[in-house]
């Protein structure tokens, strides 16, 4: 029996390794910093016959997603990746993937948005795609990127909804860390080949996304809305079965740290949430009962799991790496408040926006911010 192997890999390499393990068929790609290295890994894996897939270099991100949609409709398992303005350029076609109920899996390597230009991470790009009908995971480590991509294919192909796997540019994508690669046989068992119940096939002609009248259109949209929420148990099941197959666990819809008896709860996503574990330790040393709740699944927002996990009378400090324009704070805080309203009136929510455009979020800085928020 083969055993797992540990290599040193960047987050970008971790993503590419997962795509290889998923035995993806088609990879349309267009470079954009900091995502480019994923596509470089993909291109060389295809070139070296490590992955039996078709790599399609395209002339822009709109075309990358269009090619992904077409290949997925033809029954292929598809992967692509992008960042920042590249994701914004895909926006229209993202709706086509979700409305068309195509199980595309894409990595978005979080990067702030033009203008002015920035190369470094914040979460405005993925949050701006909140209403495109995609499921969104947000990862906090290289290993979680690898694990989540494989879980994402599992979930996407069960419910026919595309999934975006997000992680921070540079802090994850260019960070070299140990990566555990499970035996391929274990992954093959966890993620069987993609067998769509429908595909575009010249031998059995069908028409995809025809014009619909309101009476047909409205139910399609309702079903998409219902099924996105219905994906929550599938996300949990995928995490559980992945754990059984590989022994690895990053949380399912949420991930928590020292939360049970916490009076002050840090609430954040992505790599800053990993660093926050150290901030929690610092605060605990200072005598503050701190804890962490990280939504690993951002969309659908795991309302029930958050409501169940938050300790009584906790002060929740939402640290947003994005702006909710038109409101004073960030988007996560807004989502959390809408979930708690009328359900958990014992909870206090406070919010700060930080880390915009890659401002370094250190454990000491975030611990100090949380302390300051306690006095607000």
């Amino acid at each position: 029996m083969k055993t797992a192997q540990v290599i040193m890999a960047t987050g970008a390499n971790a993503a590419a390794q997962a795509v290889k393990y998923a035995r993806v068929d088609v990879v349309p790609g267009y470079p954009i910093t900091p995502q480019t290295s994923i596509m470089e890994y993909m291109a060389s894996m295809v070139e070296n016959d490590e992955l039996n897939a078709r790599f399609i270099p395209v002339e822009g991100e709109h075309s990358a997603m269009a090619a992904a949609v077409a290949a997925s409709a033809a029954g292929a398992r598809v992967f692509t990746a992008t960042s920042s303005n590249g994701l914004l350029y895909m926006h229209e076609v993202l709706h086509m993937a979700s409305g068309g109920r195509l199980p595309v899996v894409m990595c978005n390597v979080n990067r702030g948005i033009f203008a002015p230009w920035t190369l470094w991470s914040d979460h405005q790009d993925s949050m701006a795609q909140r209403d495109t009908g995609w499921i969104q995971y947000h990862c906090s480590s290289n290993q979680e990127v690898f694990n989540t991509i494989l879980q994402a294919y599992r979930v996407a192909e069960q419910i026919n909804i595309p999934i975006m796997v997000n992680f921070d540019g540079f802090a994850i994508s260019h960070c070299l860390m140990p990566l555990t690669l499970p035996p391929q046989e274990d992954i093959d068992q966890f993620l069987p080949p993609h067998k769509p119940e429908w595909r575009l096939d010249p031998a059995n002609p069908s028409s995809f996304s025809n014009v619909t009248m309101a009476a047909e259109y409205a139910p399609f949209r309702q079903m998409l809305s219902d099924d996105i929420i219905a994906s929550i148990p599938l996300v949990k099941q995928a995490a559980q079965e992945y754990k059984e197959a590989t022994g690895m666990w990053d949380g399912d819809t949420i991930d928590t740290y020292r939360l049970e008896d916490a009076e002050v709860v840090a609430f954040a996503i992505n790599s800053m949430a990993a660093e926050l574990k150290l901030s929690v330790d610092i605060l605990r040393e200072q005598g503050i009962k701190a804890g962490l709740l990280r939504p690993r699944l951002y969309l659908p927002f795991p309302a029930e799991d958050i409501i169940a996990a938050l300790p009584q009378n906790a002060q929740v400090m939402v640290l947003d790496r994005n702006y909710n324009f038109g409101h004073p704070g960030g988007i996560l805080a807004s989502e959390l408040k809408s979930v708690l309203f009328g359900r958990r009136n014992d909870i206090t929510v406070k919010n700060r926006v930080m880390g915009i455009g890659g401002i370094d979020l250190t454990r000491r800085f975030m611990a100090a911010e949380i302390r300051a928020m306690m006095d607000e």
Partner: protein
Amino acid sequence: MLELRINGFGGQGSVTLAHLLAQAALENGEQGQALPFFGVERRGAPVRAAVRMSPTTIHAHSQCELPDYVVVMSEKLTQAALGEGIIETGTVIINAPQAVPIENHPTWQVDAEAIARQAGLFNADGPLINIPLFGAVCRVLNIPRNIMEQTIMNKWPGKNGERNLGPAGEAYNTVKQVNA
């Protein structure tokens, strides 16, 4: 968790040095992390990279603001590197023919450039100082010499790796603390 920051100029091999150190941590049975800071048009300009080593999972994903060790790739950067932050009694490792001891900080000196030149390790940018510096830093961090050599050979199997063993080993032996 041990934290280390490399301060250098773009082209001196700071990223590769960071990668080698993280890899050495793994070969040494620990967890390692290399997190270079990437910018735009950095060749010839000041750059930095974070390295962490720990027996347990590393959760930090920020640059090292207060590292335990600072590696100065060029002595011109010494003051700037210290200005970026180091813990009160943090160790400084400087590439220089001679180094002035830094008050309150254990200061180590290695002439990485001379070692690289003597070994004929060059590329278009000049001598490959990161290889001797890797040997020197391993010595300061008490990473066994065989782990240091194993890391080099895993990164560049065969002849390319072997060419680096001499200069890395020489730096491992000659790096010295100037304010013991």
